[in-house]
């Protein structure tokens, strides 16, 4: 078994040079938005033979043990960075269903797609908005101080501004109605949310040696944008530009994760200053097409379609992963990984197969 790697040699500076297009890499570099905890646990136990400690907030010793495991997983699988998230929590409604696919999980939690927690000016005022002083950067600082030599810290403290507003605060349908009924309140919600997210990044930059921001914000679906370009530019992309500017002012990179078919704002993603575009689905906007259209202008991360990663048999998966690498590695500016994230329903065997293909890939 190739994993765990016995002698990993992470090199975050090399990684950054590849992102900036200074080097066409001689090895396949890896990147993920996240690997779900259920899978991290399996890797810890079955690959690293370590005791697993679930993520938790209050007990700092256990919290540290969780992160020690996460760092070790990424280190031993060959990554150059660890992404750390969740520094701010927006109170929300949650719903629960039976989990169908993941061993050991009986329930899956969902956020609302209908109405959110803010429905009018009164509920906007009374909503328990997180306070800047409550921003918890302990995880960032801990990981920063405990990374093996050569690894870098990348942060992504919360969902993106659009996701926070549509999934938590207003709800998707609620916001759609409010855009018609009370557009000023929609604007207020975006400003309040954006200010808070910006404050987290400012704090993290001061307190850590992070090398980049890795911010998600889904804006598309299978065949197009969920919102008009005008809306996205005003309420969403402007905030990502501010975050990208903050990153660049501090010598960091900005990795932008957004799902769906974003062809209509492909140029806007470049204009806001993203260094890396992440999230590709073959049925929406594949990494193959994106490489052809934007491969010389921005670095691509991911591309292995999650559906295929979850369902393909070993032989088909190897062929497909090699196809991704053959298409994306030439010319550089490519970081290999799943199209979205390594979800808890991806079989461990498939995840390791994907990584192994990357490890063995050679230029033709």
């Amino acid at each position, binding site marked *: 078994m190739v994993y765990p790697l016995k002698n990993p040699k992470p090199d975050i500076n090399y990684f950054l040079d590849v992102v900036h297009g200074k080097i066409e890499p001689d090895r396949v570099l890896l990147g993920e938005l996240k690997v779900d905890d259920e899978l991290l646990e399996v890797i810890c136990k079955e690959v690293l033979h370590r005791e697993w400690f679930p993520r938790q907030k209050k007990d700092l010793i256990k919290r540290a043990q969780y992160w020690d495991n996460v760092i070790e997983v990424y280190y031993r699988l060959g990554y150059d960075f660890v992404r750390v998230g969740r520094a701010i929590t927006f109170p929300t409604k949650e*719903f629960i*269903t*039976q*989990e*169908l*696919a*993941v061993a050991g999980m009986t329930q*899956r939690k*969902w956020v609302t*797609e*209908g109405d959110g927690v803010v429905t009018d000016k009164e509920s906007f005022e009374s909503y328990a908005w997180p306070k800047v002083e409550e921003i918890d950067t302990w995880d960032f600082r801990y990981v920063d101080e405990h990374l093996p030599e050569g690894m870098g810290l990348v942060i992504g403290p919360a969902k993106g501004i659009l996701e926070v507003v549509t999934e938590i605060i207003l709800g*998707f*349908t609620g*916001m*759609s*109605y409010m*855009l*018609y009924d009370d557009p000023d309140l929609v604007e207020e919600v975006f400003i309040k949310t954006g200010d808070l997210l910006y404050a987290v990044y400012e704090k993290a930059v001061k307190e850590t040696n992070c090398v980049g921001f890795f911010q998600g914000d889904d804006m598309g*679906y*299978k*065949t*197009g*944008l*969920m*919102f*008009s370009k005008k*809306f996205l530019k005003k309420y969403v992309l402007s905030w990502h530009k501010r975050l990208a500017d903050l990153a660049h002012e501090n010598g960091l990179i900005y990795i932008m994760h957004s799902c769906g078919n974003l062809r*209509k704002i492909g140029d806007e993603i470049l204009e806001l200053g993203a260094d890396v575009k992440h999230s590709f*689905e073959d*049925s*929406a906007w594949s990494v193959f097409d994106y490489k052809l259209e934007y491969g010389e202008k921005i670095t691509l991360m991911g591309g292995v379609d*999650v*559906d295929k990663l*979850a*369902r393909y048999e070993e032989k088909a998966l190897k062929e497909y992963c090699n196809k991704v690498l053959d298409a994306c590695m030439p010319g550089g500016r490519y970081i290999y990984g799943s199209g979205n994230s390594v*979800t808890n*329903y991806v079989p461990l065997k498939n995840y390791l197969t994907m990584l192994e293909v990357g490890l063995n890939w050679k230029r033709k």
Partner: protein
Amino acid sequence: MTLLEQISEALVDGNMKKVILLVEQGLEEGVSALDLLNNGLILGMDEIGKLWNEGEIFIPEVLVSARAMNAGSKILEKVLVSDGFEPISKVAIGTVKGDLHDIGKNLVGMMLKGKGFDVIDLGVDVKADQYIDAVKNQGAEYIVCSSLLTTTMMYMKDIVKEFESQGLRNDVVIACGGAPVTQEFATEVGADVYTDDAVTLAQTFLQMSQ
């Protein structure tokens, strides 16, 4: 501009209050409920479907127009029932078991209503027996299974099998859709219809009904 054109325009603009006022005005002036529905509301929703398909409008605009459509339809409902109105056909829609995503499913429902179908919304986390019940007891001739996750879309196979095991497979048209669903997958599970988007699905059902 005629009253019916004004209704369509107000619906396209998402102006629910105006739609309500105009529909009420139409009934008071003796315009038939069926005319108000077909040549006012449905015509407006059809236009919304076209604009959405062409990328001229987006999901929020569709949702706001659908809100106006629902408000207008509600006023007409009782009159239509007493007039013995028959919809084109009945469609049962739902997001399959284990999955709570409902926007895609709702958009499909709106586009179907916009084509004149009677839509039975089974909601989210829908099990096979709920679809069976909609066909057996509520007269649904089409069912739509929606899913946003690779894990939950697998349940669509169970739904098709359940219809087969109950001897109802030939009584219903089964459509599958959602972000991870492809034509290849739909064929694999034995579904009859797959389309990339809600507008095309409604058009496909309409063609199949004619």
